[in-house]
């Protein structure tokens, strides 16, 4: 079954860990893509339960086992680098050590831990001519904080180390407080630029646990919210890239088109960032003849005007000069690192949950996946331009003949006991993964959130190697990653 959500009875954990790790390697060898790998506390405090999620030929698959914290496990990162950030996270959260991990450093400095951002073990490059440049956590613009340290020889970056965790709020712990049916406002702020994708992933998993799947009209209106979010954030990213290369017409035009896109969201749900659009059980939209007419005409305006600025952007020599060949991530690197979303697709990796894991909505109203191959800043910019076009086309098809969605009924119902529900939504950056697990009484016992940024930050670090340090801002903007989404 190819669907973006999976709900299964929590598998039996009584198996030798060695079998489990063998199975992980076998799945990877068989071509399955690692989607997530995480731990949760076990009933026995000496143990931690490991869960690996794969995107395999038949859809999402899960492997699980319980291991002794104290023993840890043999790291898989050297053989399968896509595990690297997951193993670091696992060690930080649960103390299960991935032995022989090549890069076992803090991720978020959670409460209760002794580690502090000030004593991060930076990689050192020795040499008389080598110098370091440290930037952040507070950056020049209005932007979230994080620390970048460049090891350079002259103007050339040999290595960039990205140290995050400054934004860590402890969101996953909060998700276990209060009613699991009422988490939407919190979920919408996990990464505030990806509110709709996170809210949808949450509702998807929750509706699997309450066994109340939404109807197609609801799914379609959720899709409208998601694609509007994608268009708006792609426009914001393009505007930012233009500002970084001093292509001011692009900066202002993409910027004001974004205003149109987010005001359209506001018209339907009251919030420019799509807060309140999606709730368990449905959508909460003010859709009537007037708003649908405004939606249609706003989309037509974006389509008309974006074609004009796109042409200018794509043909301007200064733009091509600043973006082509800069910040390259090869297809091989993207695959190895397990990059996701637009960063992966810009490097020729064909993954997009909307086409790969499509449920009924994706079958009825398919969307075209966009792939670029050059893996540079240019590819990441033109991918966003082309994705906006595809989203606009999809929205046209989706809105045509749509009826007014029923007001979201307050979601009721018990969560099924001893279940693990996993949902994957393709947000504008990439796949958003939510994994919710219930205990024997049907209470939420664990909530795992995964923003695509978690996996893609290392892609940014790789992209700037052997580039000039002055090209860092444009590389950074081209990846456009979330700090909060990473730090939670």
């Amino acid at each position, binding site marked *: 079954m190819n669907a973006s959500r999976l709900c299964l009875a929590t598998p039996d954990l009584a198996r030798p860990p060695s079998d489990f790790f063998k199975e992980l390697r076998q799945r990877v060898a068989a071509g399955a893509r690692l989607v997530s790998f995480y731990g949760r506390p076990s009933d026995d405090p000496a143990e931690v339960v490991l869960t690996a999620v794969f995107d395999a030929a038949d859809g999402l698959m899960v492997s699980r086992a319980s291991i002794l914290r104290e023993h840890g496990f043999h790291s898989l990162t050297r053989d399968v680098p896509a595990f690297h950030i997951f193993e670091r996270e696992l060690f930080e959260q649960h103390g299960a050590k991935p032995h022989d991990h090549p890069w076992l450093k803090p991720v978020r*400095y*959670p*409460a*209760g831990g002794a580690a*502090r*951002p*000030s004593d991060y073990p930076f990689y050192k490059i020795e040499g008389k001519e080598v110098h370091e440049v440290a930037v952040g*956590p*507070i950056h*020049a*613009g*209005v*932007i*979230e*904080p994080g620390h970048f340290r460049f090891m350079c020889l002259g103007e050339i970056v040999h290595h960039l180390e990205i140290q995050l965790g400054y*934004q*860590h*709020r*402890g*969101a996953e712990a*909060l998700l276990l407080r209060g009613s699991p049916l*009422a988490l*939407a*406002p*919190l979920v919408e*702020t*996990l*990464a*505030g*630029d990806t*509110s709709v994708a996170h809210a949808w992933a949450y509702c998807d998993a929750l509706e699997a646990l309450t066994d109340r799947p939404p109807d197609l009209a609801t799914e379609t209106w959720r899709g409208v919210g998601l694609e509007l979010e994608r268009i708006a954030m792609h426009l*914001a990213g393009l*505007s930012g890239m233009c500002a970084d290369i001093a292509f001011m*017409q692009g900066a*202002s*035009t993409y*910027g*004001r088109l974004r*205003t149109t896109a987010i005001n359209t969201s*506001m018209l*339907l*749900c*009251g*919030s420019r*960032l799509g*807060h*309140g659009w999606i709730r368990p059980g449905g959508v*909460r939209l*003010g859709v009537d003849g007037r*708003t649908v007419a405004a939606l249609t005409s706003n989309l037509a305006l974006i389509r008309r*005007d974006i074609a*004009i*600025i796109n*042409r*200018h952007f794509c043909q301007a020599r200064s733009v091509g000069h600043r973006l082509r060949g800069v910040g390259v991530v090869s297809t091989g690197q993207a695959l190895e690192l397990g990059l996701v979303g637009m960063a992966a697709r810009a490097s020729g990796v064909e993954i997009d949950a909307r086409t790969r894991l499509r449920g009924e909505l994706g079958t009825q109203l398919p969307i075209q996946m966009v792939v670029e191959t050059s893996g540079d800043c240019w590819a990441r910019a033109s991918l966003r331009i082309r994705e906006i076009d595809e989203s606009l086309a999809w929205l046209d098809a989706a809105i045509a003949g749509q009826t007014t969605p029923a007001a979201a009924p*307050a979601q009721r119902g018990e969560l099924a006991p001893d279940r693990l529900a996993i949902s994957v939504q393709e947000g504008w950056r990439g796949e958003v993964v939510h994994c919710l697990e219930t205990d024997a009484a049907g209470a939420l016992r664990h909530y795992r959130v995964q923003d695509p940024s978690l996996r893609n930050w290392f892609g940014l670090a790789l992209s700037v190697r052997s580039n000039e340090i002055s090209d860092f801002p444009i590389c950074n903007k081209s990846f456009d990653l*979330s*700090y*909060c989404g990473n*730090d939670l």
Partner: protein
Amino acid sequence: MFNALKVRLSQGSQYIPDLRDVTLVGFRGRPVIGEPPCEAGCQACRDVCPTAAIAGPEPRLDLGRCVFCNECVLACPDQKLHFGPDYRMASGTLDGLVVGPGKAEASPVAVSEALHRRFGRSLKLRSVSAGGCNGCELELNAVGNVNFDLGRYGIEFVASPRHADALVLSGPLTRNMNQALETGYAGIPEPKFIIAVGACAISGGLYADAPSVDRSFATRFTPSLYVPGCPPHPLTFVNGIMDLLGIRPPRGGA
């Protein structure tokens, strides 16, 4: 060349002529609470509020906590409250953020003579996000875009605290940003002030009790302006600052 002209032509003029007088369509802004007293003992709105923003029997809604999720509106059996499109919600005091029954008008931000004299014609802002989810940051960036163009009043974000007159704070204040926030604020030369943006910065919002949030900075320094929202609309921010500095009072205003 022709491409540039075509862009110019399609762009037209995008700026909002009067930032004081805009009608927002669909915006979930300033709440309006009906006059007639509530059924004794009704807790419906309080029970669903994720940030404990509603208190008292009247009820009274604290914009400093509210994330505008609309749950209370849907929960109220008497449809006593709704969110209107008014974006004027900023206040110079925490008390000014509390909305009670029947009061449709925003309590105006008191003009600060001292701030007007110093910064009325040029105000440079340094933004620090300490756990802000990029919602507030996106909207703060938007105040400088071609639509809102706050730069027309000499109000701009700058790259260094050294160049700034005020700190614009967003996010619930994470423990891991504590030190950088202190250093950043210390780097702004006197005289300076603080603007707290969004429910998170004002009260901790949804993250008030989060395990890795440390609000000690907020207990030691008092903002001169609170800009509520999740995130605040750019116009809430813009009008709040203009009120505080006494720039172009709104039509019909003082």
